[in-house]
């Protein structure tokens, strides 16, 4: 919904392209755009102001570069600065030398603590640990049961009792010790940062169990108040880091930047989907791209990795290298892409996709049609599309419920793709060189 910073800057900077000297007005306008982009991403105003100067230095340097795309240069400079602010290190859990390692989760109501507790426990379990969950949220109706259901789903025991939160937490940790569980994740009730009695209760839980890690759970949609909330929870708990939830939404998540800048605590984990496995370490570089609206190609790669059949992908890549990538391979890969979800979603994560394309409603039915067209070809046709003449084309069109023009359009696109591959140097080297030379010859003539 917000135009990306890159897009906006291209507009603002198009005027200065080719100028030998930048005016103060050029610089001011650029900085104003950067500032607004950060505010629209819900980066806290005070944080925007405090990093503005650093960003300005970086941006002015980039603007001065004789690049053809000063906008992208500036964006890159800002991007690098944001990464620097958020810190480059990925958070690592150091397990306590004497188990169990105790992890306490705290946060506002509805930030996703209980779900995050389940996901974190699964994360530990997958890392070969023996986690246990403690349900110390006795406030919200159904919270204990919710954690029990999650525990059952991931095969992790859940401790709870109907006493009071402090007692549940300390007895839970004791129980984990008795059972030889080596990581304990304690879920607590949501509370407002300004609710003093409940914050004091949080402090009491903290004192009773002396957790190794105290995570503040905040959701990616949070606005300007993220700073105040983080500050208050940090004052009470001395938080170790933040778990940022609901990152699978389309919020820019400026809070990640704000919290780090103000309380100096990094985002440790990110919750990125409805499924319990959708939980990962936090990557500052991706977050920087996201805050600036640059798409998220790395997440795309990860999603590709998790849903792609590696063998099929590798086969496709090999065929591409050999220069034998035919429609048969294309169909295989097409099915892979579709497994990653709706094309619009995949597209929205790719950077540099023009806005018209990104906003275009993509009809998955069109893609069904592509699949249908290729499926209606004989294996011979798929391997060698050149044999497709008028009559074959009509047959394929009838078979796939499309028109011969559609078949033709697809074949044309496929040929263009092959051409593109050669241009960017994929495929057997010799073939590329040969074609390149012949191309030059043709031009000479």
């Amino acid at each position, binding site marked *: 919904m917000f135009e990306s910073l890159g897009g906006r800057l291209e507009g603002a900077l198009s005027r200065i392209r080719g100028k030998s000297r930048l005016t103060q007005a050029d610089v001011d306008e650029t900085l104003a755009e950067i500032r607004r982009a950060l505010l629209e991403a819900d980066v806290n*105003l005070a944080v925007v102001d405090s990093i503005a100067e650093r960003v300005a230095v970086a941006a002015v340097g980039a603007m001065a570069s004789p690049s053809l795309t000063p906008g992208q240069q500036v964006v890159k400079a800002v991007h690098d600065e944001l990464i620097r602010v958020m810190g480059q290190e990925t958070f690592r859990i150091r397990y306590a030398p004497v188990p169990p390692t105790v992890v306490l989760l705290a946060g506002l109501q509805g930030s996703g603590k209980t779900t995050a507790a389940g996901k974190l426990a699964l994360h530990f379990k997958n890392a070969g640990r023996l986690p246990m969950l403690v349900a110390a949220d006795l406030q919200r109706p159904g919270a204990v049961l*919710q954690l029990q259901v999650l525990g059952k789903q991931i095969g992790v025991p859940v401790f709870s009792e109907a006493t009071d939160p402090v007692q549940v937490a300390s007895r839970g940790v004791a129980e984990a010790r008795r059972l030889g569980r080596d990581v304990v994740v304690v879920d607590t009730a949501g509370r*407002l940062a300004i609710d003093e009695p409940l914050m004091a209760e949080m402090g009491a839980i903290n004192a009773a169990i002396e957790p190794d890690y105290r995570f503040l759970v905040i959701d990616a949609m949070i606005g300007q108040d993220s700073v105040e909330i983080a500050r208050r929870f940090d004052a009470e708990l001395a938080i170790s880091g933040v778990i940022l939830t609901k990152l699978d939404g389309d919020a820019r998540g400026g809070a990640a930047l704000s919290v780090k800048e103000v309380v100096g605590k990094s985002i440790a984990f990110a919750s990125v989907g409805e499924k319990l496995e959708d939980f990962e370490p936090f990557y500052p570089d991706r977050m920087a791209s996201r805050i600036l609206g640059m798409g998220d190609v790395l997440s795309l790669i990860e999603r590709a990795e998790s849903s792609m059949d590696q063998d099929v992908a590798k086969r496709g890549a090999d065929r591409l290298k050999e220069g034998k990538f035919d429609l048969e391979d294309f169909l295989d890969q097409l099915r892979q892409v579709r497994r990653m979800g709706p094309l619009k979603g995949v597209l929205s994560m790719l950077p540099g996709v023009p806005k018209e394309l990104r906003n275009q*409603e993509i009809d998955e039915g069109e893609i069904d049609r592509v699949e249908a067209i290729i499926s209606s070809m004989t294996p011979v046709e798929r391997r060698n599309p050149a044999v497709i003449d008028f009559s074959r084309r009509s047959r394929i069109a009838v078979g796939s419920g499309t028109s011969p023009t559609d078949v033709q*359009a697809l074949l044309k696109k496929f040929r263009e793709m092959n051409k593109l591959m050669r241009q960017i140097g*994929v495929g057997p080297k010799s073939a590329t060189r040969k074609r390149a030379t012949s191309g030059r010859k043709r031009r000479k003539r």
Partner: protein
Amino acid sequence: MEYLVLALVLLVLLGFVTVRSRRGRVPAGSQPEALRGEGPAGEVGREAGSGEGAPVAAAVVEPTYAGSLSRSRGPFSQLFARIKGQGEVETVTRQVEETLILADVGPALAEAIAGDLRGSLAGGSLDAESVRSALAAELKGRFLDADRTLHLGDQKPGVVLFVGVNGTGKTTTIGKLAAHLAGEGTKVTVAAGDTFRAAATEQVSIWAEQAGVDLVSGQAGADPASVIFDAIDHAGAIGSDVVLCDTAGRLQNKGNLMEELRKIRRVAEKGAGSVSEVLLVIDATTGQNGLAQARAFGEAVAVTGVVLTKLDGSSKGGVALAIESTLGLPVKLVGLGEGLGALKPFDVEAFVDGLLGGMD
């Protein structure tokens, strides 16, 4: 290398899809929202005009707005404390703009409000009192002059659908509203339409029990639309006045889940004849994404009003103003705390006063 393959496949697909649409064949999927959504404004208008629908009388408003909103000294009271009567209009309006941004009004709207304020302050006095009242007038003027009553429908049972992203307080709001309506003598059925999240049904059933109202639930993982259809059916049989339908939280960019919500609305409409209200529940801590939420849910299920929850925290809920002024969706209810009685009708005056805080 593998990703290159992927990128190339995407390229062909995109090329193909766009070639087709450029030829003027509109892909079937490109226009459904616009056609499906009935204008929310129209719906409200019709209900209001019918006279038969039972608008919920204003709940007892205890002095909660100002109380809740000033529990933390807000940025505005800090600002007004700094304004000493001297200085330039430019400086003051810039400070106001920044403070509006801190209240999550959003940079664009804050700039517009500050611009208008500049006009109304020009030449006049610049003491804190004058700035405050000029700003209050400016803010109040930007809220809709809309019908904020809750319509329970002209036929029985009326259907109220609660939608929103995860964790905004849909279930809690239903619990509070059920208690309030039941207290007024309205016969309420609650439909436990969140069949996705673990223990959501139990959560809503505890609320229903506390409120002393009827509940219809399904199995975990059941089709939410069918649970809601059954609830409407059941409510009709036992003579309930209204069905409050819970739905699972969903992020607005999840196409399949939004599609599920459209289906829920269609099915509810089929069951009851019409859906009286579709309330979007938004958390007051939400930043600019609140606009995206309102836009997406509005398009998908023709939202008729907003419930702004957790307004008792330190967040000011400024995004509600952005939603009203840019999307024309009225805020109807606000959540001010955890108690059963902490759900109030939205009141512009009280909201603005709470936002700007007292003068100290």
